[in-house]
């Protein structure tokens, strides 16, 4: 039995109210909210956060391969999935590959993994931009999603049918290096996508040997919102079958979106205690259509999602439109008058990969003292080279004391900083993120999150920060 072993979405903390766009610009925007990645997040970090959640609820299974899809890669030429593998501490014999560029690549990576043989972690993440007041700006969203695919009795949802419909037409396009897309007249795409969606879905159902009435949940996703809603209407399925596509709360998150909604569907079925054998269909419209038909198994009832998408959606914090524009480079506020950091040393970063990417300190075997960064000589007792690795990325801690630095360089000042004591030992003074300064005080509970601190000379500085522990976020 091959299928999905675990799945998770990651919705960044900030939400932009679409009505703020019109209030600021005099036009644009709309109803609802869109998720906004923090200034210290990129598609790699969004993907890492989703993958951490998927692995945490994946019963300890590690993948043979990690595939990463995004239309907004942090690097070109250099594989982004390698940073993810490092952050997830996957063994060196894990294959790590990027599916880059196109919005179809997330669904494509998942379909490929489901049809493959080895255990594969499919990660997709995107940050969607549009020019101020554009439909893309309001409709877009930032998110990551990860699906662990493999074989065995832990499979929650078995693949029972799949189909692709590919068509060459120019509806949405973006030249390399540009942040925003261009669109053809909307009716053309709608016409194509509705037909392609029907075609792919029909053939996938046939392959799965089911009728449309057998479908328990249908997740239709795609950047073309009129095509998505038009297709949903045309299929005339029973009420409640076509699921909320999260565009009103998260926004359309590009390559990540079909995986994000699928993860959300599986999570809600698990929470609801849906009967075994519920048929879930993911149908994604991008340069054609891809349909995956999955049937839930008895393992779903035992599955415990680490942090369901619905909880994350409900636990966001606000961001002003002005700050959103600044974070996206559409507005350039005066930077702090401090020297910008130098680029990271590639050799030093590689030497310290376990620390920098994995947040692994060292624990003195005799005293138990935890050293972050890892140290060869113990601060207690002075033993030399008597350390074992201390994995701290999943540790939760308590703020001992904190401060706000209004002087230090930051891409988005001020810096909120805290001294954190971790449950089970270890102290680390660390920058906080996804927080408003007033929120942090002695006693605040925090957890670690993988972030991009800054970039210099095109090299991204990935490391860990702490963020408040919030239900779902």
């Amino acid at each position, binding site marked *: 039995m091959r299928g999905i072993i675990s799945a998770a979405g990651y919705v960044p903390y900030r939400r932009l109210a679409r009505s703020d766009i019109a209030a600021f610009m005099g036009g644009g925007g709309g109803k609802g909210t869109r998720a906004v990645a923090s200034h210290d997040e990129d598609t790699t970090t969004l993907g890492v956060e989703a993958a951490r959640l998927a692995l945490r609820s994946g019963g300890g299974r590690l993948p043979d391969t990690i595939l990463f899809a995004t239309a907004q890669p942090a690097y070109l030429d250099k594989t982004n999935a390698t940073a993810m593998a490092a952050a997830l501490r996957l063994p060196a014999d894990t294959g790590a590959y990027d599916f880059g560029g196109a919005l179809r690549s997330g669904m494509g990576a998942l379909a490929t993994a489901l049809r493959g043989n080895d255990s594969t972690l499919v990660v997709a993440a995107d940050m969607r931009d549009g020019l101020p007041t554009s439909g893309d700006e309001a409709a877009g969203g930032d998110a990551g999603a990860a699906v662990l695919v493999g074989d065995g009795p832990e499979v929650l949802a078995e693949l029972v049918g799949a189909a692709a419909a590919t068509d060459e037409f120019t509806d949405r396009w973006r030249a390399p290096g540009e942040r925003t897309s261009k669109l053809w007249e909307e009716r053309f795409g709608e016409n194509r996508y509705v037909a392609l969606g029907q075609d792919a879905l029909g053939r996938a159902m046939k392959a799965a040997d089911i009728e449309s009435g057998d479908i328990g949940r249908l997740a239709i996703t795609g950047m073309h919102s009129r095509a998505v809603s038009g297709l949903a209407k045309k299929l005339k399925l029973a009420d409640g079958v076509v699921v909320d596509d999260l565009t009103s709360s998260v926004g359309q998150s590009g390559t990540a979106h079909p995986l994000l909604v699928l993860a959300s569907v599986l999570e809600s079925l698990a929470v609801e205690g849906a009967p075994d054998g519920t048929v879930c269909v993911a149908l994604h419209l991008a340069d054609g259509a891809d349909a995956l038909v999955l049937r839930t198994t008895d393992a779903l009832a035992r599955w415990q999602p680490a942090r369901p998408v619905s909880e994350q959606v409900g636990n966001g914090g606000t961001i002003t439109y002005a700050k959103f524009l600044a974070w996206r480079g559409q507005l350039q506020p005066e930077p702090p008058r401090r020297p910008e950091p130098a680029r990271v040393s590639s050799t*030093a970063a590689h030497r310290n990969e376990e620390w920098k990417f994995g947040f692994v300190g060292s624990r003195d075997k005799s005293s138990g003292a935890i050293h972050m960064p890892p140290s060869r000589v113990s601060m207690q007792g002075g033993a030399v080279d008597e350390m074992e690795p201390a994995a701290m990325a999943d540790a939760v801690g308590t703020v001992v004391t904190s401060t*706000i630095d209004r*002087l230090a360089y930051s891409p988005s000042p001020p810096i909120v900083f805290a001294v954190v004591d971790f449950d089970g030992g270890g102290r680390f003074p660390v920058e906080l993120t996804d927080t408003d300064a007033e929120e942090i005080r002695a006693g605040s509970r925090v957890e670690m999150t993988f972030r991009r601190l800054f970039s210099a000379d095109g090299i991204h500085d990935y*490391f860990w920060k702490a963020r408040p522990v919030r239900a779902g976020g």
Partner: protein
Amino acid sequence: MGSHGIYDKVAIVGMGCTQFAELWEKGLDDLIVDASTEAFTSAGIGKDDVDAYWFGTAQSGMSGITLARPLQLANKPVTRVENYCTTGSEALRGAVYAVASGAYDVAMAVGAEKVKDSGYQGLNAMNPPGDGTARTLTAAAMFSMVAPAYAQKYGVDEETMAEVLASIAVKNHANGAKNPRAQFRREITKEAALSSPRLAGSLGVFDCAGVADGAAAAIVVRAEDARNYTDKPLYIKALSFAAGSGSGLIDPGYDYTHFPECEAAAADAYAQAGITDPRRQLAMAEVHDCFTPTELVLMEDLGFAPRGTAWKEVLAGTFALDGDLPVNPDGGLKSFGHPVGASGLRMFFECWLQMRREAPAERQIATVDRGLAMTHNLGGYPGEMVSFVSVVGSELG
């Protein structure tokens, strides 16, 4: 093994100190020449009479050439030192030990920093290439965590704590106002200190040392030779140094209410100097008041007040110019700014003036007859710090 000190073996016989300020018209070379020339004149000697030089600068230059070229020294041994914000003290340490060892008859320490050429406010460290995981927090933010930790531990309410810190700023600015070499020569009110814009945590502009260019210099000889140069030498009673392991940053036992490196340096210096009651034996202390909570905590680390009581002593005026133990009678880092290479030697310069009764009348301390003065200089942050302490005296024995 042991720290034996060099009690009364070496004496300072000449000093110089520039004004500390934003000296736009002066380069590093000018600062070096000004401070050195004043020191040579003070000791009544020339540059060729000095056998060896120690030059302290944190990041204004590299190697002994940075001193040798502007002074046109001919093949003298010149050592450049750096030790965070204790760099100036470190230069003196090298010179003093060189004389104490018998290697040289006359040695000179020069400390200088040209800070205001960077184009940025504040001090900005130039770090070696790294893996990108080091903290980028300012010193102000790191030290700002001391104030709430202290207040909580000793039950000082927020308003009182703010008043304590403001009192330290008011005192040091009042002293600096009487000092022509200080960067800031205006007294401030407690209200001004309390209402200044916040920079880091609860620390406002007036809680932080200024940023200035400056240089200072000292000439040292064997104690028995001192009176060949001056009638009023300053004898070195103790020099101590403590470099922390940095474990305070990651040790859950550290509570940000004291600086163990400073306690260790003070204990060593007091042992060397035979001091058992610093509050009453010392005539004055120059301490590293980079931020107001730093000075507060130092009053306890250096043994001037029992733990948890310095805040009351501050409010009582114990450390004022006319108090029981004047602290930073020259105005401190608060009034002088902090040209890193020079600050440690600037502290000695105030001891030089005060203990020789050469400070201006409005600043001369009444406690001078106690005969002993201390300088304390630190670098780094709470949890990861270096600390220097010296004791100097106006008499032998």
